[in-house]
């Protein structure tokens, strides 16, 4: 079976874009809703591109170009995208006009840029890449759906159509309107929870280790419990063959209903393993779990965990543990549970 490595990974989010400044100098926020810090696109795009593409498309294209350049892969064997809401800004513009002004005189541009797969297609068009291209849109596990697809195709035993390099992306924008709507739902309807943020992450996966390899992906698992609470959880988890990690990166977001599930399940399944967080500085969004993987990957690469990832109240000393294996655990609404094991 092939090994799978992350050879490059980049983000645009509430932290400084395209760099790892958050490691030493994280930005903390107290507002409930934070847009991503945009890079100076004029440095990277033609004026026409800056004008034509919406926010999510510019971010996605830029992080994709950067990981392709850094990993030296101009034409990946697969471009796989996860996005909870797709190009929601374009969707809203088209919908708003349709609802308010009626069904005449609609401009097709925003419709063309409204489908979820606009992002993955744009990257393919930009790179003239004809290889496998797919998009997953499954709310809080969209990124893991995409990663699982890449992982399986790279592990394929059969040589025909096996994927050796995959560009995996995770992208969500949060418009003011959509934030206001989500505040009326359980997802963002709580005071004092981690801020609503935005995600743009691209990573280049490869079956070949490179000089700049960041970490290895050992396992990607997802499971669904639509009805009952998790009575089968334990047995399914034990089948995962996830050997004891040094840390678990969880998606706690200061909402007790969500956080307790992480705390209880981790205590049961991986007792005494210290937990780390990332949403305190990156915020909550459907594809935030990709930022969790990003943070874990950079920690593995540097062999250190910064103090601000520690969950307040947990008792361990950061320096006690080696940093060789981090398990990223995400759940969405206690229905979908995902596990991504990374190693040095």
């Amino acid at each position, binding site marked *: 079976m092939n090994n799978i490595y992350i050879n490059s990974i980049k983000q645009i989010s509430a932290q400084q874009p395209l760099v790892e400044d958050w490691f030493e100098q994280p930005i903390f926020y107290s507002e409930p809703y934070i847009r991503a810090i945009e890079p100076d696109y004029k440095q990277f795009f033609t004026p026409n591109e800056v004008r034509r593409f919406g926010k999510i498309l510019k971010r996605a294209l830029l992080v994709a170009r950067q990981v392709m350049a850094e990993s030296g892969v101009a034409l990946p064997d697969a471009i796989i995208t996860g996005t909870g809401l797709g190009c929601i800004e374009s969707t809203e513009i088209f919908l708003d006009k349709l609802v308010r002004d009626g*069904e005449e005189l609609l401009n097709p541009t925003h419709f063309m840029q409204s489908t979820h797969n606009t992002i993955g297609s744009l990257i393919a068009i930009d*790179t003239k890449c*004809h290889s496998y291209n797919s998009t997953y849109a499954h709310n809080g596990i969209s990124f893991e759906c995409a990663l699982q697809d890449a992982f399986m195709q790279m592990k394929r035993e059969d040589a025909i159509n096996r994927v050796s390099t995959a560009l995996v992306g995770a992208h969500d924008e949060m418009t003011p309107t959509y934030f206001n709507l989500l505040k009326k739902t359980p997802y963002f309807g709580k005071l004092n929870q981690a801020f609503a943020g935005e995600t743009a992450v691209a990573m280049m996966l490869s079956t070949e280790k490179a000089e700049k390899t960041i970490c290895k992906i050992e396992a990607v698992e997802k499971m*669904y419990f639509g*009805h009952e609470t998790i009575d089968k959880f334990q047995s399914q988890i034990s089948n995962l063959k996830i050997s004891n990690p040094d840390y678990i990166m969880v998606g706690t977001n200061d909402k007790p209903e969500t956080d307790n599930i992480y705390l209880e399940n981790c205590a049961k399944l991986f007792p005494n393993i210290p937990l780390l967080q990332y949403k305190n500085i990156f915020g909550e969004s459907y594809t935030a779990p990709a930022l969790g993987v990003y943070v874990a990957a950079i920690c593995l690469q540097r062999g250190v965990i910064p103090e601000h990832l520690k969950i307040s109240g947990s008792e361990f000393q950061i320096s006690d543990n080696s940093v060789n294996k981090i398990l990223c655990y995400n759940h969405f609404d206690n229905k979908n549970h995902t596990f991504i094991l990374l190693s040095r």
Partner: protein
Amino acid sequence: MKEILISGMGIVSALGNNIKENLQSLLANRSGIGPLHYLQTSHTEFPVGEVKMTNEEMISLLNISEDEPTIRTALMGMLALREALQNANLSKSETRNPKPETQRIAFISGTTVGGMDKSEQFYLDFLENDTRNAYISTHDCGICTEMIANYFGVFSQVDTISTACSSAANAIILGAELLKSGRADIVVAGGSECLTKFHLNGFNALMILDRKPCRPFDATRAGINLGEGAAYVVMETAESFNKRQQEHPTLKAMCKLSGYGNTCDAFHQTASAPDGEGAYLAMKKAIEEARLSPEQIDYINAHGTGTENNDLSEGTAIMRLFGDKIPPVSSTKSFTGHTTSAAGCVEAILSILALQNNFLPINLNFSEKIPELTFAPVVSQQPTKPLQHIMKNSFGFGGNDTCLIFSKI
């Protein structure tokens, strides 16, 4: 190499509310496209392929409480999934309390509109008051998949694919990969999509809707008739199938998925390359994966939307790959309308019905060959040789091109 068998199918489309009705309409050359009846829109000039049921009728067929928030895409999906599971002898109790040999049943659904039917209806309420808040959460595609899954029981994993009009075909590819990798014992894959004002107006703004019944692969073609529907296939490895067959002697494998290819045209967000590069590569990849040669393909169920651009581009790709030995080609969108994200599986099922019953679904409304193409579409149901391997093309906006090959066992 694990063999992937199709052991169940379920469908609702303009042709009927189950497999039997769809087959009968297809055999009778009876199109399901007609004047707009269910969707509330001012664009009544466009013929459409609607599922002939109101939401209320579906809610009652499914015995769902009327207080529960529902979306049309999920309702159609539940009906199609119910038939597919029954068809594969997977009863509701079995999915709720899976037996060891059917422990991991994955559900993969393709959709792009998700809950847009309710979002476009209640958008101003969302913004201005709290009367429709329950429908804010039903907007996203993943919730739609989970609503369909939860009607039945415990699926071990759920995935939603959104590659526009090739979504359901890509769901079938993911299903095969899950089975081959051993992550699932059984997969139910396909897609569901209802008509919405949102995409009807989007396609209209792009000026690719025909006011007359659509005419794929015809020189006079003038665009798409939109449709709606839901379709799922039950896929399993031969190992899982053989085990289950001992318990359910009536269980039947309909065909196998022998190959598939997914590529990207990488040309334009809404138009296909003139040389059909993405389509050509997808078909080539599928044939290679199936370890077949082009001459062995007995029928192509084309993407065939009826637009000027698609049919010429797809036809060119077919000519490039098959040369002077082009198999019979037709587009069943002349029967169902373009069911967008569901199309890949709706049309895969119509193709499998053709394979099982050894006939060629004809291309309705054809009169004049496209001058640039060397072939005309099928107008007679009678195949020249028994069908063994059939190809299903499914292409989406953004050049997401997918090809599936189904073979007799």
